[in-house]
């Protein structure tokens, strides 16, 4: 498994983290555009703009053998893990060339090669998966940690607590990473729970639990390393990354339930801009260097759109494929059944 970081030139950790975050931002802007042009498959598209430090910071703490699941807002995580943005974009476009041959789309993207056990359209649906992956990793001594990424909204789902309890009981190499963008659709976290210090719940079940401010990707990476390393050593953990969902829940949602002042303040918490400013302030790079990097990234991401538009939809014949293993017969199409029934000798 190779982690792809196609744009060379990382010279410091923060520089690399910036670059990764900038790629996520650029990708998300473009996928939103593709959606507006009606070129994505699926009526739902959830952008992770504003949450780049969670994706990049936590993935930076993971090792190649590690596995993970994501929620419905998982593009950034997968990219940070090294996904090919063209194949991602093609999947989101519902094209045969996509990671899942166009069957999954944005909310069901996966790639076993990179340890991506799947995005999920069920809030909380991918959380217990990592408990199983943790059991397997221990059983097979792979040294892998398995990380479940999910939103603050998923803290409403009981299966999170069942999963944390099991992980703690069995000392599994598992991490629960809550990307707290303050909202589940139109519901602010304090409208969904009486105690917003989410990590306290993990502690009550016997896990390591921390909350980190997502403004600073280096802090996120450092916290993630503590949590991930401890999990690898047998003490599972929970990490909440506080951030802000810059735009609507899905591409079309204009967030009428938030006021402008709140949104302005929220968007101040921009991990990409913050990293950029810090890089320049530290004198490691110039604004011009970063502009050039940004332009290269944008060009790479622009190309994914052209690629996707040029790709074909999956053929109708693929419809019955992969319901079961290829060694098994495909389900009988309704039309075939009807042909037989209507034929009657």
């Amino acid at each position, binding site marked *: 498994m190779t982690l792809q970081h196609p744009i060379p030139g990382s010279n410091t950790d923060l520089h690399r983290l910036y670059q990764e975050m900038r790629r996520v931002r650029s990708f998300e802007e473009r996928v939103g555009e593709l959606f507006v042009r009606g070129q994505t498959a699926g009526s739902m598209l959830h952008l992770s703009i504003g949450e780049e430090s969670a994706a990049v910071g936590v993935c930076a703490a993971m090792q190649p053998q590690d596995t993970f699941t994501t929620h419905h807002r998982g593009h950034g995580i997968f990219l940070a893990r090294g996904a090919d943005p063209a194949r991602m974009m093609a999947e989101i476009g519902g094209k045969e060339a996509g990671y899942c041959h*166009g069957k999954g789309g944005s909310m069901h993207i996966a790639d076993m090669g990179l340890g991506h056990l799947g995005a999920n359209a069920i809030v909380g649906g991918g959380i217990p998966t990592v408990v199983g992956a943790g059991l397997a990793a221990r059983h097979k001594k792979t040294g892998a940690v398995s990380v479940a990424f999910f939103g603050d909204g998923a803290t409403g789902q009981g299966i999170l607590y069942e999963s944390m309890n099991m992980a703690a009981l069995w000392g599994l190499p598992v991490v629960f990473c809550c990307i707290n963008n303050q909202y589940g659709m139109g519901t602010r976290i304090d409208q969904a729970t009486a105690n917003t210090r989410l990590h306290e719940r993990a502690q009550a079940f016997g896990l390591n639990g921390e909350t980190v401010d997502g403004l600073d990707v280096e802090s996120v990476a450092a916290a993630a390393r503590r949590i991930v390393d401890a999990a690898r050593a047998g003490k599972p953990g929970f990490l909440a990354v506080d951030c802000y969902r810059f735009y609507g829940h899905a591409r079309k949602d204009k967030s009428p339930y938030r006021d402008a002042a709140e949104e302005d303040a929220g968007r101040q918490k921009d991990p990409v801009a913050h990293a950029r400013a810090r890089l320049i302030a530290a004198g490691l790079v110039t604004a011009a260097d970063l502009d050039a990097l940004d332009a290269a990234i944008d060009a790479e991401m622009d190309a994914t759109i052209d690629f996707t538009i040029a790709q074909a939809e999956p053929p109708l014949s693929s419809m019955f494929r992969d*319901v079961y293993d290829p060694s098994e017969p495909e389900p*009988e199409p309704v039309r075939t059944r009807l042909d037989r029934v209507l034929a009657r000798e």
Partner: protein
Amino acid sequence: MEMTYRDALRQALADAMRDDPDVVIMGEEVGRYGGAYGVTKDLIRDFGPDRVIDTPISEPAIVGAAVGAAMTGLRPVAELMYVDFIGMTMDQLANQAAKIRYMFGGQIGVPMVLRTQGGTGRSAGAQHSQSLEAYVMHTPGLRLAMPATVADAYHLLRQALTKPDPVVFIEHKALYTMKEDVDLSAPALEWGKAAVRRTGDDLVIVTYSRQLHYALDAAKTLSAQGIEATVIDLRTLNPLDFETIRPHVERVGRVMVVSEGAMTCGVAAELAARITEECFDFLHDPVIRVAGEDIPISVSTQLESGSVPGPKLIAETAGRLFA
């Protein structure tokens, strides 16, 4: 008056809430957001947050809390944003709501409504496009309503909100924007009665929810070919109004059942089995099942629409019965 299916649902909720102070709505995004599909828009403004309750994302407990509220004097309308999430709630629904009256020897009922929506049509993928009514229809104790028309969206929901037993109320996501001219003050069809939406002598099509419209479309195509179909809209699957179906089947002798749900062990199977056992001697042909493929739904629009019946498949299949 012209009105959408969505607006009719909202009107039904609002009218019920005005008439019965014990009606409360609870679910994800039903309040401030106005519902993922806009059905509950502005109800929180009109009835306040104590009656239009935004919940955390906790489907099992939403249904469970509705059960408790229904047992203690409220008439809750719990909302599942997608019927695809019913899997998390089947314990509260099937082991609690459906069985409480029986297990407790008739002491108490669970007069709640579980509103949700299903079906394909928005390329929402395998976990947001299913038609899972068969799980509900198979569960004794649960009533099941699936409105196909704007008038039924209104009336069935109003009626559901007067019933003594739990009603699962499944809307179709592709119908929300459908407009029809309706007079909501006109007398409603009785709860539990199927509606004969078209009468013809050659074929009976029994269906419900969005497939009603596909069946009516197909009936038009068939009519142009000289085949006249009777089209029956079940409206409620529990109770199932067999008495409306029977005389048409006996009169016509050829039947097709149409359901968007997966074919195997689905609603179409029940309808076919029931019609056959009740009317066997009147049937010229086996009851023809047209239903969803036994596969998950893709996001790809062409795979999505290919995996459920449409007007073309219905008309073609019917046509072949007469070839």
